């Protein structure tokens, strides 16, 4: 169980990017009535930002 959790925590920034940052971006854009570029949906745009950002945090060990 603990080993599974350890692996989960290793990729947690990626999960955070998908699970939280992506919908947060999409809903913030909707709140301010901002359209996503290139005909994307807001959620797809959020995922396009959140997932790579989370992956970067996994890779570098920091968000910025």
């Amino acid at each position, binding site marked *: 169980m603990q080993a599974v959790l350890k692996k989960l925590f290793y990729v947690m920034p990626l999960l955070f990017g998908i699970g*939280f940052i992506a919908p947060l971006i999409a809903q913030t854009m909707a709140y301010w009535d901002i359209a996503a570029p290139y005909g994307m949906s807001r959620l797809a745009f959020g995922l396009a930002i959140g997932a790579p950002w989370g992956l970067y945090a996994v890779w570098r060990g*920091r968000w910025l």
Partner: protein
Amino acid sequence: MDEPFGETHVLARGNAAADALAPQRDARAIPLGGPDGLDRHVRRDLRRQESAIALRYAAHATATWPYTAVALACFAAWLSFFPLAVAGILPLWLGCALGSVFVAGGYVVAHEAMHSNLGQEGTPQRFWNELTGNLSTIPLMLPFSMVKLMHLLHHRHPNDPYRDPDAIHAAPNVAMAVVQSWLNRQPGKGGTAARWRRHCAELGTAEAKRALAELMIAQVLSLAFLFAMAWSGYAIEAALLWWLPRHIGLSYIHAVLSWAPHHPHGGTGRYDSTAIIRHKLGLWGSMGIDYHLIHHLYPFIPVHATGAAYRELKPLLAQRGVDVSAR
């Protein structure tokens, strides 16, 4: 282990067992170059007088139930923020501001529970001590067991760059302390999470293993809640009611409650690892951190009583050569 550790050690300071537990009771207060002019008998007598005063302000001699009452009320209020905000009754900015205060204040109340000041083991009040501690750290997304373990380790090795979990907050000024707090929250090897794992591994106790397991469970559950809120269409609510207040609260805890009283993180002794300060936010704004030296000397004194204890202890501490200048 060469010294007693944990709650027993911390709580024992100042009571009948203090002389046996304090490893350097006859040492000079501050190991500066010149002698303090006191012989070991005088130092021991001063220590006894100190302990006698401290015991008058101890948690068992004062009412600490208001801590529990406030903690339970604030936790209930914090929980209510979510349905109230979703229903459009609570403005998000207000929820965010109050949530930030509750995160920081929750730590201060949990801190009393860490030192068993709300109910010692074996007493009927113990249940409330543990309940208060466990509920108050939920907004931090941290389990009480881990926060308590790391805090007691901080008391054992204050300012030790390797052994004090809070030494990670050292910074040249308050602005950098906030930046450092943010850097410490990064997921990599230099972050707090990695450091806590190292401390737990080095302790190697069942208590440390349990705290680590509870840390992982607490994080998984709280993140799962955030993800569920976000994917249900309430990402902004989740961000402004929990995620952002947590970060604001942690920055406050690290910069005001940890960095300020220990800066410049130089001394590691009983009397010089922290100090009496005058925080720019004032006594209330800094949640009583001004008398942190008294807390480290006698952790069984609840935070509301440290000021009065300080005023009575001040002449004795000054006689010992302790810096009581309130820098």
